């Protein structure tokens, strides 16, 4: 075949002098440009360091009781620095406990949300795309889960299985599947009417490919956003399960557990519940702001916001 057509209809393009930046450099530079995202990413990185190292470094300090220091107030400089955020009802360092608890918290909340996102998301894609029985069954199951009392679910799991971290994750994940399923499905209902999906179908693309290559990327921003918000919820709900004897039990700790422990002291020692609550809030916020940044960099139509410096 000849290639006889001269390149036409293309506007002039002034190439920049230096080589085109690599994709990675591109992302880094757009992260550097968005200060909010950068701070969020930095905070998340710190949390991850705590997750990795916290328990090895501070496990003993987090458990060391001192009933004399009970509910010691924060920002008192005559105590060791670990007590800078105050002490809890058993006189343990709130700071050390927050750091040590990060591992369990992120493990549980992260896995639970991720599981429900993946499962709920995948089922939502299917429910939105496939009409008829499959969709109806999935949706009615979701309805059923939505109205199944989660506490009963927890108690059942407790009686049927051995209590353990895996079960906490299971209970949390199951109860949060419907929201992802239904959100994804709603988006898919609209997306599947788009012409580019029809195009892919006409090319012979498998349902699987259409779902994951064409539909999922369009749904992802909303879902990731939602997942970041779910993290906060799951962190707090998880502590409720500890009180049933399912999952995390002292001396293991999570932020949610710390918050609930502090519940009784809100009036007398606000810091016991406040700091872990604040950390949960900050993590949620960082995840969200970071995911907002992510959605912009992954959306070609929006990406310019982060690439052109505002000159």
């Amino acid at each position, binding site marked *: 075949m000849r290639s006889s057509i001269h390149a036409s209809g293309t506007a002039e393009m002034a190439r920049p002098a230096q080589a085109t930046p690599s994709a990675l450099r591109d992302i880094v530079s757009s992260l550097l440009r968005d200060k909010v995202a950068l701070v969020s990413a930095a905070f998340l990185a710190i949390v991850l360091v705590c997750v990795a190292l916290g328990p090895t470094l501070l496990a003993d300090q987090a458990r060391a009781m001192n009933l004399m220091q009970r509910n010691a107030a924060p920002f008192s400089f005559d105590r060791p620095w670990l007590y800078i955020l105050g002490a809890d009802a058993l006189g343990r360092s709130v700071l050390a406990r927050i750091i040590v608890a990060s591992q369990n918290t992120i493990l549980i909340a992260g896995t639970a949300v991720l599981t429900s996102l993946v499962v709920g998301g995948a089922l939502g894609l299917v429910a939105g795309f496939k009409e008829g029985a499959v969709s109806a069954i999935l949706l009615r199951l979701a309805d059923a889960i939505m109205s199944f009392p989660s506490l009963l679910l927890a108690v059942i799991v407790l009686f049927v299985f051995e209590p353990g971290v895996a079960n906490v994750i299971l209970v949390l994940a199951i109860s949060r599947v419907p929201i992802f399923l239904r959100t994804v499905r709603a988006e898919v209902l609209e997306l599947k009417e788009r012409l580019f999906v029809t195009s892919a179908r006409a090319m012979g693309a498998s349902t699987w490919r259409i779902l994951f290559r064409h539909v999922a990327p369009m749904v992802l921003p909303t879902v990731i956003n939602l997942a970041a918000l779910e993290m906060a919820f799951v962190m707090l709900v998880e502590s409720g399960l500890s009180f049933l004897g399912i999952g995390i039990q002292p001396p293991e700790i999570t932020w949610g557990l710390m918050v609930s422990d502090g519940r*009784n002291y809100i009036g007398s020692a606000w810091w016991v519940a406040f700091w872990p609550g604040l950390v949960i809030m900050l993590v949620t916020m960082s995840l969200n702001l970071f995911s907002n940044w992510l959605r912009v960099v992954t959306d070609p139509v929006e990406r310019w916001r982060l690439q052109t410096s505002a000159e």
Partner: protein
Amino acid sequence: QSGDAVTIVLPGGPDRLDPCETPRSVIGRIIKQNVVETLVELDYAKQTTIPRLAESWEQTSPTTWRFNLRKGVKFHDGTPFDAASVVYSLERTLDPKLTCITRTKYFGGVDITARAIDENTVEFMTKTPMPILPTLLAQLAIASAKTPKGEYTTEPIGTGPYDFVSWTQGENVKIKRFDGYWGEKPKIEDATYVWRSESSVAAAMVETGEADLAFSIAPQDATNPETDKVYPNSDSAMFRLSADIPPLNDIRVRKALNLAIDRKAFLGSVISDKAELATQQVGPSVLGHNPNLVPWPYDPEQAKALLAEAKAAGVPVDTEIRMIGRPGMFANSNEFVEAAAEMLRAVGFKIKLDNLEMTQWLEAANKPFAAGRQANALLTMHDNNSGDAQFTAFFKYHSDGRQSEIHDAKVDKLITDAGMASGEERAKLYQETFRYIYEDLVADAPLFHMVNYMRVGKRIDFTPTIANAVELQLAKLVVKSPS
């Protein structure tokens, strides 16, 4: 002349308002001695009984008691209070169709019947001698014969100074003064009972004047000594030890466990500083309490030494022990078990902590125990507000007791003998039982006799006592004159 109205905050709402359930504090605090009355009233301070609806009584044989009833008393529905109504109330309470707590808890295997001798005389007959029958009858609320048999009622009709008005599920119960009351007319005219499980909110309600009195607020919310009053609540906390299972089957290990818990350190921190260190399962107000026992000291070194000794003797002291708690058993009970577990770990115990939900906790607490269960230290809180050790000793320590972890022939005999005895003799036998269990067997780890904080609003003059664990006689509240 219009009287005063008060609002009272309880920690939990009632599920029914049946006179046969008055020993349960959620019900008793509202209706006992206010709406329904008993023949006999307990005087906790003096450990004796005083007349209420009965004017006097006598034991006519080891198994029969004769009660002379107060005359001229009327129920709220107008029917007269007489011997027949007492018989009716007893029969209704003992009806197996209902699971009245008065029956299940106090008249368990008692086999008691009543008979009206004349209008104002009742005779009670038991199969076996029942030396503390008056104490038992302090639990039996007398209700009008209009109260249906065989089903629970939500509208109690009694002889008390207050007439039941209404109960809105989840919201409130209202009672008002009964003008036809036989006794002295109380000052307070209307009372509304509401409930808040959040202690800080309950405390806030009294502080803002929305309520006049809040039962059992958490120690940390009891910040105002002017309004917040402490009273013993007849609850005793204790770790029950599975004394049959290694390593807890070794007395040295049990002793070490007792020595390793710094009980004093909890007072004034996690537990109220008004609580008392316990040496036995019943509190000082109970007949049979042994005042001569000395609380365990905190001695971690000796605990370690005992453990080492046991280990040398081949006791598997490294075996994991399960510490079982229950959230909300008492204020800060979670913190307490967490701290106690740490203390035990500190001397070398291997502790696994489980905070269980009620049903599971009961499975661990009650016989039949699970086959092959782990050695455990089970946190319990036992209340005995009947004033007699009988309701504790048997089921906690007798071989056949539902919660007993021990089977000691001497204990069994002591308990059986004490149950038959009365007066001094009875007290002595129970005291010996508790001494033996505490000093010789070291069967468990007694912790504290607990207290409650009650917040009493500025309008009210009232000092709570141990009686308020299960009742609150409105007649005893004094509304200060507005000045």
